[in-house]
């Protein structure tokens, strides 16, 4: 497996407070990584740091694969409630942004671009919502729209920051299935941030447990067999999680 993203000894500070301390891990092509940890553990900051949205105060974020640059990452950020209920844009306008922002010079959509927008709206089953205003969407529809915007430019990697937090279980499972298909069929590398360790375990192949520093990074078998993790989480929590991962 070739590495597509290397995080080396990264520190991020907000004022004097170190939110991330000496974080290191490597993402390989085709990985589907669940990034978990308690609230305030630095998960969102980590994602923003590797996207260049938050400056790192130490260490490095490296994209070693020439086929994957920062601009080629699709990002779905945590929904900030009520920020855009009045925003006068349709679903199609927002999804089209995912293509048009990458263009140079005079920016416009070609007929091929429009077909691509149609295709991705169809894939995510939101074509009938294309003329609906973004403020009128349900939580699940809104997340699908953001996912469509992230996918429309055919990204090499997806970073999803708690995209399922506002969704009911059925829609959440649908979203997970879509992502699993993208990962398996199109080889898109995925980093999926969640505070819910149980719900993502059955879909992802690796886990990064962050609590300002890396507590665990590896596959689930390692996690389930790790005595350090038993000590960290307690036997019951570890056992419950590993049982769900293997049986659900």
């Amino acid at each position, binding site marked *: 497996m070739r590495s597509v993203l290397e995080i080396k000894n990264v520190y991020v500070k907000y004022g004097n407070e170190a939110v991330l301390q000496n974080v290191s891990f490597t993402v390989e092509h085709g990985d589907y990584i669940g990034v978990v940890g308690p609230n305030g553990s630095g998960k969102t900051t980590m994602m923003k740091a590797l996207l260049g949205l938050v400056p790192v105060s130490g260490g490095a974020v490296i994209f070693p694969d020439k086929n994957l640059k920062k*601009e080629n990452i699709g990002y779905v950020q945590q929904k900030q409630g009520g920020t855009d209920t009045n925003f006068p844009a349709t679903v199609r306008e927002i999804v089209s*942004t995912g293509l048009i922002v990458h263009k140079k010079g*005079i920016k416009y959509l070609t007929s091929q671009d429009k077909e691509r927008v149609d295709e991705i709206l169809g894939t995510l089953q939101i074509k009938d919502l294309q003329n609906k205003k973004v403020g009128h969407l349900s939580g699940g529809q809104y997340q699908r729209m953001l996912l469509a915007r992230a996918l429309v430019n055919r990204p090499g990697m997806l970073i999803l920051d708690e995209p399922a937090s506002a969704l009911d279980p059925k829609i959440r499972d649908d979203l997970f299935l879509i992502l699993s298909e993208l990962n398996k069929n199109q080889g898109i590398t995925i980093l999926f941030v969640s505070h819910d360790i149980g719900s993502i375990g059955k879909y992802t192949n690796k886990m990064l447990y962050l609590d300002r520093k890396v507590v665990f990074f590896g596959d689930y078998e390692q996690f389930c067999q790790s005595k350090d993790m038993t000590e960290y989480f307690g036997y019951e929590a570890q056992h419950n999680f590993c049982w769900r991962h293997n049986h659900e």
Partner: protein
Amino acid sequence: MNNIMMLLAEAVRYDFITRALVVGSFIAVSCSFLGIFLVLKRLSLIGDGLAHVSFGAVAISMVLGASPLFFTIPLVVIASFLILRLKEKAGIDGDAAIGLVSATAVAIGVFLASKGQGFNIDLFSYLFGNILVINNSDLYISIILSVFVTGSVLFFYHDIFAVTFDEDFAGIAGIKSKTINNLVVLLTAVTIAVGIRIVGAMLISSMIIFPVVTALQFEKGFKQTIVIAAAVSVICVITGILLSFIINAPSGATIVIMNSIMFIFIFVTTKIKG
């Protein structure tokens, strides 16, 4: 009715009325193009702050005997960047930074005006708008600057749209959000410096806010909202200027009252239609 038509026909025969209609319409379009981004980014207040700065700048230019428009534009642009720097570098909240800069500018203007010729008709006309002060050079400058503002917004439309909806997403794609925000504020500064001739420093920010908020009631897409806002604004400017001539009222106040009536009418009718 015939009397009103005769008055309107008489109004457009006056050069100062036609100049005001042309300048006002161009300013109205510029304000609407910028207003949608400022309102959605919750930066509407910067229009108010820069209008106060422009009043201070006009007062200073009168004391110095300089051309108000040539003096006001660079000063308001400098003030707009000062507000952004205070917000970004000094960690002062945006609304507080606007308050600091605009209050200082107005205070300097009032201080210099009182030490110079004192408040006169000219200065008051910039406070509340006076279409009589618009001359031909103002007309040409207004048209050129409005075309520049509108053209810039159209050229950077997709970048500005992306930054307005989601700065992080735009940033990852390589769009420099800070540059785009600076551009919008710069264009706003220029528009306000030009626009205070018509509606005055006290009321110019309403031309940025009212048409956009009125257009938002239709719940259309982004481009349609801009077009509706521009149309609403031009209609209010034209009816406001003509009405101010007919009833002998201040042009700025009349334009804003037309905007208020338009907003209430559209707000109520869209809510009734549900």
